[in-house]
């Protein structure tokens, strides 16, 4: 058992938000999924206040040792989540972390308040890779605007508050320090790197959403660098992620300062990547 923000977890491997849909997976694999759940905590897809259909297809591009997605955060919206998704997610055998995003302080506040009320939820993750409507930059790109956001919503949550940082910034450690300064309980990183793909012959963007985010093996060493930089600056626990596909990769991230390791794109290649990596990690840790 390991402890993370007061949660008791079986092992340090969780999923990255938006890279595993436990409800859909149960439709495909049945209740075997519950008996052998790959992660020690489940992180939901990002939930927004209003329902979102997501971006027009195509939404995927296979890149060099990675992929680019432009999914566009489809979700049922807060109400739909509470009504349809939450009861099903509550059946999972692990603690539930709900990831939320809003395009204004007020939206985030309403999300955090509503989620914080629900006993089924163990912790809240705040996705700040959302463009600031004024600057066009991610809210999480700038330490000051992030600090303001965390300051505004922190008092609204009794549950642990995890801030999921954006990697598309000059100084991720400064942003992490801002989150720490305003009372966040943990940070998670890295989210996808901004990337574009062009349609093979027509030279226009391939992705229906225009640009997208790069994930998978290609970003592993960038993640290692950003997690190390953040760990060198703050003392909050860190959920590290980015291209993790094996126990060795998890050991690497832990050795630079991650408390938990999240698996994202590798879930698509191996639906049980979480349990596999947890057991590879365990045998590596025993050996040392």
């Amino acid at each position, binding site marked *: 058992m390991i402890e993370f923000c007061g949660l008791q977890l079986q092992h340090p491997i969780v999923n990255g938000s*938006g*890279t*595993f*849909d436990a*409800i*859909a*997976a149960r*439709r*495909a*694999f*049945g209740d*075997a*999924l519950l008996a*052998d759940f790959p992660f020690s905590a489940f992180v939901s*897809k990002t939930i927004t206040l209003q329902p979102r*259909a*997501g971006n*027009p*297809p*195509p*939404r*995927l591009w*296979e*890149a*060099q*040792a*990675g*992929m680019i*997605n432009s*999914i566009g955060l*489809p979700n049922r919206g807060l109400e739909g989540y509470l009504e349809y998704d939450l009861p099903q997610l509550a059946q999972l055998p692990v603690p539930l972390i709900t990831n939320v995003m809003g395009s204004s302080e007020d939206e985030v506040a309403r999300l955090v308040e509503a989620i914080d009320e629900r006993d089924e939820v163990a912790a809240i993750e705040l996705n700040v890779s959302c463009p600031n409507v004024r600057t066009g930059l991610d809210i999480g790109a700038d330490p000051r605007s992030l600090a303001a956001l965390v300051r505004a919503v922190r008092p609204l949550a009794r549950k642990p508050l995890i801030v999921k940082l954006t990697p598309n910034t000059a100084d991720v450690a400064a942003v992490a320090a801002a989150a720490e300064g305003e009372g966040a309980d943990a940070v998670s990183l890295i989210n996808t790197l901004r990337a574009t793909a062009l349609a093979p012959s027509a030279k226009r963007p391939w992705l229906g959403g225009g640009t997208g985010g790069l994930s*998978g*093996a290609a970003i592993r060493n960038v993640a290692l660098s950003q997690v190390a930089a953040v760990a060198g600056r703050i003392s909050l626990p860190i959920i590290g992620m980015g291209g993790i596909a094996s126990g060795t990769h998890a050991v690497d991230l832990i050795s630079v300062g991650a408390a938990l390791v999240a698996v994202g*794109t590798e*879930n*698509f*290649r*191996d*639906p*049980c990547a979480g349990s596999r990596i947890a057991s590879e990690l365990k045998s590596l840790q025993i050996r040392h």
Partner: protein
Amino acid sequence: MRTLAPLGRRRVLVSRGDDVGAYRVLQVADPQGPPLPAAGQFYMLATVARWGGGDDERPYLPRAFSFLSARRGKLSFMFEDVGPGTRRLAELDAGEELWLTGPLGAGFRTPHDGRRALLAGGGVGVPPLAALATVLSSHGTRPTAVLGFRDEHHAAGAVLLEDADATVATDDGSVGHHGLVTELLAAELARDAHAVVYSCGPPGMLEAVRALCAEHDVPAQLALEAGMACGFGACYGCVVPLREGGYVRVCVDGPVIDAARLDGVPAH
């Protein structure tokens, strides 16, 4: 129709590989899989060795393939080399290993209210139709099929539809009807429109089938394709727009979708 998949991917052995016209047919031993996947379901495949390092350093993600047949613990798949993933798979021979996840998605629903099954498709759309024909034949009615191919070399793939009476069309007229598969389908519908059409093929063909069926007010079930990363609903990457608005994921809500739910079949 949905048969549950064992949890996770499993390592399976290729038991044979054959070239059939322009296509490669792989047989794999899947002793741990369910004996009866539903016609129209699919599996995610990747090779165990050297998945990656092809054109532009791809493939990285697994690839989706409908099964062609499932008999006595053996699955077969059919595909054409169209990119780095299918190229790597086409190299495989007996004794090599695959990662396999599935069966995934929802397959075809068999006809009710006395309609006859009309199978329409072509190219690498043959597998789900072949699997469906096997089910229908085992229920006592060998279905009629119309299949379109580019040319004679590709039309050789028609033999894989063992359990149907198939008529073939080719784009270049090198074998069978010189023209489109929808022309054959229109003739069949003219003969007897109390039918349900099952279709799988390239997007243009599927769209033509959808439009034709809509025109004749004949129900159709379309086995769609979409770029996929995961195949089990995790990535939300594989969506198609619905007539009613919004999107559905082809991998969990399809790949078989009622034509009536679509305004059109997207080009990719």
